[in-house]
């Protein structure tokens, strides 16, 4: 299990290749990657704040739960903080399982929990000022299915 919270960029290509290569007996690997969208059309910086210490604990707990629940071979979570620009990669998760349904479900579960239960907060700095991204009801509701 590999959980990383970091300010520096990560290389999706390297991470995905290495993750798939180190699995054994797993037939399915799923990755999810989150990218900064220029939602405000004028986004200059997406600032991501987190809670050092608690973030790692929360991500580790979420990943362990996913691993146990779907019998995963492995889990990777990488999440950046700091100041990002449009089109930069914010975060990724990767899951490996024997069958595809488990790998998909585990990745969706990780994302749903990570969205609403890991202590990250996003602030959009645009041409017309800055504002904190509000949590979406759909993201909270998404937890109900697990």
């Amino acid at each position, binding site marked *: 299990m590999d959980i990383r919270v970091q300010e520096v960029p990560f290389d999706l290509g390297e991470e995905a290749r290495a993750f798939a290569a180190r699995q054994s007996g797993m037939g399915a690997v799923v990755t999810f990657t989150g990218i900064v969208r220029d939602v405000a059309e004028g986004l200059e910086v997406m600032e991501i704040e987190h*809670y050092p*210490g608690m973030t790692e*604990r929360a991500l580790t707990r979420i990943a362990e739960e996913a691993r146990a629940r779907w019998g995963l071979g492995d889990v990777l979570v990488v999440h950046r903080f700091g100041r990002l620009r449009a089109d930069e990669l914010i*975060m990724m998760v990767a899951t490996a399982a024997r069958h595809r349904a488990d790998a998909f479900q585990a990745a969706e579960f990780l*994302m749903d929990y*990570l*969205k*609403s*239960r890991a202590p990250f*907060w996003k602030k959009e700095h645009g041409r017309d000022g800055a504002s904190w991204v509000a949590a979406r009801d759909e993201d909270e509701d998404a937890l109900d299915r697990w």
Partner: protein
Amino acid sequence: MDVLYFAWVRERIGTPKDKVDTEAATVRDLVEELRAREPRYEAAFADLSALRVAVDQELADFDAPLAGVREVAFFPPMTGG
């Protein structure tokens, strides 16, 4: 006890952290003490339904007891991913 603030809670209060000496029994009691301090605290804690709390780095609710606790954090709903 360390009391931490994140995102707009931090901005409203104007500091990321307070060292607090308190006899508060629960998070809710601590909130009342902080609110009484200054208008900026009153503003940050005006609507508890907009806030989340972590006690010793675990999500908790406002009725959580504070006995033996070393760190309490207040922040808005999380927006990771």
